């Protein structure tokens, strides 16, 4: 369903998509926020939404959250068409945690959550509030004023608030922004727990390693959708597979060694003892390369498949885009 270059189908499921977005566009007057964005998100999927500053990520989330009207295109959110009349019903089924949690600083943590429990129509909200606070390890801080909490703790209160209504879809905008590594890991654990419970998570993040670790699929947006797919699929579509070889001493005739029936399609060397070899199948090529090196009397320090990170994928896609380069 993706309009991007390597759009792929989400993981197969019989259930209708949690999110279905078709050619969605938003303009503010002459300014284009995002254009012709199409993708689907399956129930229970953790979907990463990546892109440079100003790419339209937050506006997309606000649009899907019924805070902003799209200029054109359509979407179905939690099974409900995104129309003017369905705003309240959609918002009842989703929750959005903005990057700034936006807490009432003069109210306690519990008072903040009581407000939102009331707005979501939760009867007898106290057990749900306690559960949400326990889920973010804030059980003991319920009576603290939000103004007295650190940024990281406020972020966790924002997450607890997003959990309160037991939403079908959670939109998390930079949920680990400002958190220390331990707190960020707790948020990651929480997102994995949400996945186990079948909650669909729409995760906007700048932390590419976070997206790689947590997300079933990622979308890369740069006003237009550049790509959608599993990280592995994006890597394979963008980069040839390669082996990284380290030798004890520089090779005297690398061309001769690497072209002895080893399956190497090309190579480059970033420093005298490190070589990156393009191969079609690393499992087949690696033993042949080792044999060729040993036969040439070379001491091999290491050989491993070179993995391109999501960051490589992201930079490759964004660098191709002249608009991003100018941002």
């Amino acid at each position, binding site marked *: 369903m993706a309009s991007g270059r390597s759009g792929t189908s989400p993981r197969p499921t019989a259930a209708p998509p949690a999110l279905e977005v078709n050619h969605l566009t938003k*303009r*503010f*007057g002459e300014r284009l926020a995002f254009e012709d964005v199409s993708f689907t998100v399956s129930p229970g999927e953790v979907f990463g939404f990546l892109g440079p500053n100003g790419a339209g990520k937050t*506006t997309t989330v*606000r649009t899907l*959250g*019924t*805070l*902003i*009207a799209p*200029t054109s295109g359509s979407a179905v959110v939690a099974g409900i068409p*995104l*129309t*003017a009349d*369905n*705003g*309240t*019903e959609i*918002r*009842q089924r989703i*929750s*959005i*945690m*903005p990057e*700034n*949690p*936006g*807490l*009432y*600083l*003069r*109210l306690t943590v519990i*008072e903040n959550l*009581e*407000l*939102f*429990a*009331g*707005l*979501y*129509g939760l009867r007898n909200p106290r057990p749900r509030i306690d559960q949400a606070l326990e889920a973010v390890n804030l059980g003991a801080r319920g009576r603290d004023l939000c103004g007295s909490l650190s940024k990281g703790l406020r972020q966790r209160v*924002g997450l607890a*608030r997003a959990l309160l209504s037991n939403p079908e879809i959670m939109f998390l905008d930079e949920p680990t922004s400002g958190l220390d590594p331990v707190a960020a890991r707790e948020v990651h654990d929480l997102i994995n727990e949400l996945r186990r419970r079948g909650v669909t998570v729409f995760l906007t993040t700048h932390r590419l390693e976070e997206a790689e670790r947590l997300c079933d699929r990622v979308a890369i947006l740069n006003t237009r959708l550049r790509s959608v797919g599993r990280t592995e699929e994006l890597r394979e579509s963008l980069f040839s597979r390669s082996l990284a070889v380290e030798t004890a001493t520089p090779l005297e005739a690398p061309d001769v060694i690497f072209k002895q029936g080893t399956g190497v399609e090309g190579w480059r060397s970033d420093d005298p003892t490190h070589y990156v070899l393009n191969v079609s199948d690393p499992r087949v090529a690696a033993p042949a390369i080792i044999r060729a090196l040993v036969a040439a009397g070379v001491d091999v320090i290491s050989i491993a498949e070179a993995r391109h990170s999501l960051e490589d994928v992201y930079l490759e896609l964004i660098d191709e885009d002249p608009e991003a380069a100018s941002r």
Partner: protein
Amino acid sequence: MRLDAGRLRAMIHKEFRVLLRNRFIIGTMAVLPLIFLATPMIEIFRLSPGVPAIVVQRLAGSTFLLLLVIPVIVPAAISAYSVVGEREQGTLEPLLTTPLRREELLLGKAVAAFVPSVAISYLLFVLVIVCAQLFASNPAVASALVQSSQLVGEFLFAPLLAGWSIWVGIAVSSRASDVRVAQQLGTLASLPPLVVVALIDLQILTPSVGLALVFGLVLLIADVLMYRVVSGMFDRERLLTGAPTRGRRSHSPVA
């Protein structure tokens, strides 16, 4: 108008909690009425028994006028803070992501501004009458303060003026980018109805129960119209992004 009682209750409850912990608002609610109360109280106590009736009537009129300034300026200070204050704190967006409808949000904020403002106005009105009855050296002052037209005017105008002031304040707050600017503009824009009150209280228009009722009806209509204007201009896209919704009908976040 579709309202959910639970959401409205949650909104009102939150507004009261936030107001009661906002020192600036509490200070405004406490200090402004005292300032407006001080002058007439001093005049009432100073008035000697032998002064002409016209002087007594004028003092009663100006006292009521000052008392009716209170339900105008107190809610203006609260309601002008209501939207721009949320936006400055970053709490507006989370609020708009909930199922809360526009009417529930507006009424929640209005009730939280209305109740303390009218309560303070009535309380001070009763306080002035009681003090005049007990301590004024000229007994005619106490009689002038409890004339039927004045009583009807005070009890009728206070909530209606507060309503006008609240909707004007919220309207200004929805468009303003700064709390102080919103409060100054909101207070200023709330004052025009006081001109008629001033004409009545200063007896340029002859005070009567009928006149008070007619003006009360005009104020009620103005309040309803102003609510509709505020509701119509409550554009969440503008609130969040600064840009008004264009083109097709919007997915109102609080509709």
